């Protein structure tokens, strides 16, 4: 019994370590720059939270709202297209014994780990030739492919039992109906998990927009907040902190509300 208590004490100390930056961020949003430099661990007195929020919202004529809207566009559209396409691919692997199946699967697996630092530079050259640099399409198009989620979708589809398809096929269902009405409902939980992970991945993606965008109104929020400066080009710590707080709020909300769908994934599936 005493041993369990010591485990709890260690766990509480660790919890404080994991919570601390969140706490520091939240109290940071209540301070102006001179209060931040006082290094206190208490909220700012007087409280500057509203002033900071107004500062973020009115910064450069409200460009922060453009950033938020862009992030939602990139993450929702990108994740939906990527996962729907992956879902169709998974269905093809599940239902059909086609020529090149094994080779294609190995190809998908082999390219699922390609680092963005190898593909983004050639993509930049490609988009430059197509006049797509500094367009929203340059962020969206690469987001439409999520190779890893294809692998995961194949795994989800493989868990759908044969009987479900056979019964519908005897009733004369077409392949499209088998996909949409018979199969899809069975892989919806996997679809949601992959959608959420893909959403978060695109929301957090910094490198691709950094390379392909240069006008601020098209930036996602994660890139936008790193460009906040005063007119002389110096950092404005209180606004950067407050905008960081708003940039992670949607993620925290999603995680808290849809916790059961956030399943950690490794290549090992049981």
């Amino acid at each position, binding site marked *: 019994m005493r*041993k*369990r208590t010591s*485990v709890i004490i260690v*766990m509480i100390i660790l*919890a404080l370590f*994991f*919570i601390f*930056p*969140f706490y*520091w961020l939240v109290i940071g949003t209540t301070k102006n720059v001179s209060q931040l430099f006082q*290094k206190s661990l208490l909220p700012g007195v007087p409280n500057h939270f509203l002033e900071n929020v107004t500062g973020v919202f009115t910064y450069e004529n409200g460009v922060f709202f453009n950033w938020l809207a862009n992030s939602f566009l990139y993450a929702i559209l990108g994740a939906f297209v990527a996962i729907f396409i*992956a879902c*169709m*691919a998974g*269905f*093809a692997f599940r239902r*059909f014994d*086609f*020529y090149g*199946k094994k080779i294609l*699967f190995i190809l*998908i*697996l*082999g*390219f699922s*780990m*390609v*680092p963005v*630092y*190898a*593909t983004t*530079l*050639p993509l930049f*050259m*490609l988009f430059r030739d197509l006049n797509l640099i500094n367009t929203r399409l340059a962020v969206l*198009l690469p987001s439409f*492919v999520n190779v890893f989620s*294809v*692998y995961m979708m194949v795994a989800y589809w*493989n868990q759908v039992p044969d009987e479900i398809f056979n019964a519908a096929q005897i009733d004369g269902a077409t*392949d499209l109906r088998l*996909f949409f009405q018979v199969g899809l409902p069975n892989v919806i939980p996997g679809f949601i998990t992959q959608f959420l992970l893909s959403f*978060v991945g695109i929301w957090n993606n*910094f*490198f691709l927009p950094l*390379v392909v965008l240069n006008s601020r109104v098209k930036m996602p929020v*994660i890139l936008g907040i*790193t460009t906040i400066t005063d007119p002389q080009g110096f*950092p404005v710590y209180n606004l*950067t*902190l407050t905008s*960081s707080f708003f*940039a*992670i709020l949607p993620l*925290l909300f999603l995680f808290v509300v849809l916790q059961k769908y956030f399943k*950690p994934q*490794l*290549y*090992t*599936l049981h």
Partner: protein
Amino acid sequence: MTDEMKNIKMQEIMGKKKVSKRTVATIKAYLFLAPFLLLFSTMVIYPIALGVKLSLYGQRGARMWYIGFQNFATIFQDSRFWESFRIPLFLLLVQVPLMIFIATLIAFSYERLQKKGGAFFRFVYYLPYTIPGIVTGIIWSYIFSDGMSPFRTVIDLLGYSGTKILTRQHLPSILLVIILWAFTGYTAFIIYSSLISIPKEFSEQAQLDGATFWQIAFKIKVPLLKGVFIPLFIFNAIGAIQVFNEPWMLSKLVILPSNYTPAMYIYNSAFAQGRFTYAAAMGLILAFLTFLISLYVLRSAAKQMLAGDSQ
């Protein structure tokens, strides 16, 4: 016609039917695969191929000319490229083993606590993983900056007011803290997920023999978790050689060399110095290293899938 001939004839017809059935299946399958294949080939395969082509060219400004493997020959002698692996190597040798060790202890603590707040701790420890690397970098770089750090007050009180916190010398340790903060809870959750799938029979006998909880944990359960430790090591090794966001944000408060990590060197070579083809070649080396590191997981994943396929 004899029966034998009839049989052969039948087999021929059946065989043909089978082939045509497979052709139909192939057409249908590729219709479903078409959107993915189109985007996969233009957004992944083509860039890699273009990267290979670029890596074989010399470049000055907009002018490019074929030079064969000379970029690679230059890279192998470019000490700045190899120096950029210092941070990944440090993370690989210190952060990754340390994190997996701590995460294992945490996973066992979750198991021990189960009903007494285990779920609460799992939730809190996992939270940092949901935060983007850039925001993590912003918050922690401010927390460690000498102007804003709450630790500054403590350090001053201890009589080290002359020692700065956020310096290049301290950066590896600072990165260590940041990355441990971001990924330990997630790692612990993964280990815990496979820990609870270990059947009870494995520990029951040892329990009867009077073994303690931690004895059972380390002597019986840890060896059974091999299947999760290996992929964890591999994925974290990949994360280590590709580290970019956190040092990028820290470089706004500390002056860092352009080759602080391989990814930063690739980015800076391309966009600060305009050496695109050289950066493309380095990108390919990074991709190749990643592929080599992940080969073990990829192979076992392929085996698992293709085996499941024939059932």
